């Protein structure tokens, strides 16, 4: 397979890894991004993985287009040969379902003819692939939610949704990293901050890895929230 690419003006280049959204394409992009991180090619400023593409921004005074392209083609051949597959991680997001912070949990259950416990069980028994990050800082685009709990967006979006809210919109699920307006059906809340501009590592998640919601009680929520406040909480992650 030859590398497909397009220039993005004079300071960017986009690599194309597929035409449709799939886990396989996403894993290739993650591997390529890991190679880029390891290689530290001079002149590359940053890169942005997305569903089917990886875009790279660079300084032409450090590396010209042709020279960069040659380096990228070399790396691309490496992933064709099947590099040692670095295992992906599953980040665990402790989530308190229902209650005041998950006001639409009953609606999601009724809409799908399920009990509240079924909704929680289905929602928390899946490793969701983080296809990409975007929309707002730290927001993960997740794939793989069961159609059994799919629910349309609210007809009246809420003017304010608290950071950490876990919601469903159609057949997507997600977590709000910061307070924003929104029309998602809210089923719970995590005390973990996906985004904190003051923290040494402002964003918790990285695309190409997985996320799993872990049900917790109100008491556990409160104690984790306190640990987060004190800067003592560390997110659990394990190899997939």
């Amino acid at each position: 397979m030859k590398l497909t690419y397009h220039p993005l003006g004079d300071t960017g280049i986009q690599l194309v890894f597929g035409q449709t959204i799939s886990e396989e394409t996403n894993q290739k992009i993650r591997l390529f991004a890991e190679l880029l991180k390891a290689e530290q090619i001079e002149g590359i400023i940053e890169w942005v993985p997305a569903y089917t593409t990886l875009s790279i921004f660079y300084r032409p005074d450090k590396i010209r287009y042709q020279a960069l392209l040659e380096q990228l083609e070399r790396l691309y051949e490496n992933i064709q040969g099947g590099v040692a597959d670095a295992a992906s991680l599953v980040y665990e997001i402790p989530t308190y379902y229902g209650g005041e912070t998950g006001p639409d949990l009953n609606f999601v259950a009724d809409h799908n003819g399920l009990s509240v416990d079924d909704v929680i069980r289905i929602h928390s028994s899946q490793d969701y692939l983080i296809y990409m990050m975007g929309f707002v800082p730290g927001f993960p685009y997740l794939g793989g939610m069961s159609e059994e709990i799919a629910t349309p967006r609210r007809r009246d979006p809420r003017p304010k949704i608290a950071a950490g809210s876990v919601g469903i919109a159609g057949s997507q699920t997600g977590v709000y990293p910061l307070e924003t307006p929104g029309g998602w059906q809210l089923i719970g809340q995590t005390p973990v901050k996906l985004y904190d501009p003051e923290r040494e590592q402002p964003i918790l998640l990285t695309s190409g890895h997985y996320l799993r919601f872990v049900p917790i009680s109100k008491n556990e929520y409160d104690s984790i929230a306190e640990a987060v406040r004190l800067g003592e909480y560390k997110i659990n992650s394990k190899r997939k």
Partner: protein
Amino acid sequence: MSKKLFQVIKPGLMTTFQDLGRTGYQEYGVVVAGAMDDFSLQIANLLVGNQRNLAGLEVTMMGPVLKVLEDAVIAITGGNLSPRVNGQPAPMWKSFAVKEGQLIEFGQPLEGIRSYISVAGGFDLPAVMGSNSTYLKAKIGGLNGRALEKEDILYGNENVQAVTGRSLHYDEIPKYHKEVAVRVVLGPHQDAFADEAIKTFLSSNYEITPQSDRMGYRLKGPELTHKTTADIISEAIPLGGIQVPANGQPIILMADRQTTGGYTRIATVISTDIPLLAQAAPGAHIRFKEVGMDEAQELYFKKQKIVSVLEKIIL
């Protein structure tokens, strides 16, 4: 050592701190922001003896009134918004001293719409994710993540080697016009457009509409038709990317653009011409001209050279 530099008497229409942007976090969805006209900001810094990438004030259309609280050396570059110090016209593209008690003011926008104010030693601001750029939507960077407000006090760093009277060579001072010729590299989705659309794009006049801001410039002109759809699977969008939604009217993505987007992009404005766009007001007309990658990068080097020659003299 930090010192009180300016007191904001009037904030102006929208005055924010900007540096060269918050890079390195786009993969997490963090918007780059930064000076719309990065050339003018870099020159402003170099003229007062700063590193080129320090934060300065980006002044938009109607400038602020600043009271000088301690003697300082400043430079004003970019669009000519009729700067004055103590009622007298102030020089542009040249460093000069301001004295305690003086007022820095702005008047009519004469040419361009964004001025940059640098101060020798730089402004004293906390960095957020490595940058002082203000991104208003996420309320981060600059002064508490917001534009200047009345009564704000702006702090500066102690500075030992302020230089006055340094100026950019006359030939290198950009001219801002109401008709802007902008060079582009086509793609990445030129194949999604009808053949006629590419011709139309490269041969027509597009007007900058009032729905234009730091995030993007919405243009009005001959419709650009797609072969089938205007939508793509979301992907990263570059500075200067020209996206065309289903209505066929192009939008140029600027400093505060989101990190990803789902519309086809017909071309990307080359980095050299972004500052010209940054200085173009609603009502201005744009014509697009295609250039190849070699030419685009040659132009990049030429622009870089102006900055690095000045940098060598100073640092």
